[in-house]
């Protein structure tokens, strides 16, 4: 089994099969680049991901491991409305996988899935974040996402005025 060594930003190395790694668009490209530039075809590729820490990388690999037999979703699927179909077929495993995570980990997973080009994972994580926004008030969203208002002058007041027609009803 051809292996590839994936190294996280904080130095943890994961040995995974190339078949599994190639389910990530980014890793696939890296492996192919390595193959082209390397003289020895038997050499084990080593890929350093400088933006993802070990815990998150492990979660992404775990998700890939679970979904290694799913059909690969094209990156531009359903581009019209931006929704992937992955969320339609969200399995019980996915729900259990995401359930214990807090929002911070989910956000990091989104960034990682985006960086590694894992569309299925990106879809289910975005869907989870969406469920934390829907039906909440502005303050609740700000608290949940640890965001602060950075509007200048009367921008916020102006937006509130524009929203009035739908909020007051």
């Amino acid at each position: 089994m051809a292996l590839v060594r994936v190294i996280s930003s904080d130095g943890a190395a994961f040995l995974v099969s190339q078949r599994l790694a190639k389910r990530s668009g980014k890793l696939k490209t890296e492996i192919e680049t390595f193959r082209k530039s390397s003289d020895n075809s038997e050499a084990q590729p080593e890929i350093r991901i400088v933006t993802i820490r070990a815990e998150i990388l492990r979660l992404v690999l775990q998700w890939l491991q679970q979904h290694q037999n799913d059909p690969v979703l094209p990156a531009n699927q359903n581009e019209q409305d931006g929704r992937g179909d992955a969320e339609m077929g969200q399995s019980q495993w996915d729900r259990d996988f995401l359930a214990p995570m807090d929002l911070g980990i989910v956000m990091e997973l989104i960034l990682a899935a985006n960086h590694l080009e894992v569309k299925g994972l990106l879809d289910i994580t975005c869907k989870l974040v969406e469920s934390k926004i829907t039906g909440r008030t502005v303050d609740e969203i700000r608290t949940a996402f640890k965001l602060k208002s950075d509007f200048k002058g009367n921008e916020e007041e102006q937006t509130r005025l524009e929203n009035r027609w739908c909020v007051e009803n």
Partner: protein
Amino acid sequence: MDSRERKARNWFQWTTKLLGKPKQEIIEHTTDLDANTPKNYNSLPPELVENILIRVDEHSLYACRLVNWQWNSVASKELERRNLLRWTSWDPTPSSYQQIHFPLSPTVTIIKASGILMHSRLYLPPVFSTSNKFATNPFPTNSLTIDWSHLRPSFSHALKRSMRWDKFFCQYGHFLTQVNFTRFKETLWLLKQVLIHTPNLQALSISSFGDKKGLTLATIIQLRDASGIRISPNLATLRICEDCQVYLADWLLGLCAHQLVNFFINTENEKLFLCVFRRKFEKLKLLRITSLKFSRGFCEVWDGDGASHPKLQYLFIDMDIDWYDIDIHYNIYMDFIGQFSSTLVHLHMDMAPVSRGGFGYLKEKGPIFSKVRSLTLRSGLKTVTLEGTQAKKDAEVLFPNVTDVKIFCYA
């Protein structure tokens, strides 16, 4: 055992299961899952925020607009996109009274003018709104039609003053693939702005274009400055109708004649026609000429140089003849068609010159339309037929490979 420890143990078990035996070499890293969690999520790039917000329902999107600046931009853009998706076509004039009171988009600017007529109100995208940080496509059909004949003069005047067309095209021009101006009494300057700011333009239709002043000194200076502007390389279809100023058409053709594939010209103005046809149309495949008068004057100026349309395949010609010296005019008409004999595949022409022996005249002149596959003749009478006439015999010689002959009746 606390939850973090349990998680760490689970991971180890999982890796062991995955690889058979523990092969992972952890050089140095913390086992605390939450240690490096970002303190806030401002770091998400806008495209990821967008990826999340496209799934959020509309009501919550309005709440998202108030969260912070970044979310406001993304949510506003998404709301605008959804509102516009509901539009089947974009027309500045509202089709029903209901739309006036319930605009589809709350951010659409309504320009009010004096008068109570329905046509005196327009729905326009939020072009001048300063809060609009992302330019979103206001045209779901990528086609913009402005028909000035629907608007009252006082109102159109008011609109012209309030609407900065240059700013409008500067911001939204790149979304447009088709622009139609009807009775748009505007200037060369505007047409120039449209062409410069529409890099994806594929089709342009103008009718009654040009200001009343005609060719003034200012226009001449503008023309000189505008002779070398860059226009959309995809502009392949041009339609010039009715009373277009000759200098405007000439300038326009000078810019785009070499790349046109379809060209429609509807004019009675011989001057315009002749000036237009001075140009070389290297790629032209379809030419549709309507309302042109084939008068003696036309004959004198037209030199019949067919070399400027080397690829013309489809010719649609609907004549408007000068009834004085009718046979001569028919012959001019046939001569005009004759010059395209080597390349034409489809020919659509009038029946009248044919029944007057036009094919016989052309046969004597010599050109053979060897590539013509389909021939359509326009007739004002229902009962016209070619069977058993001299015209049929002449046609068999002139069009040896034609497989489809139709007589199209518009009566």
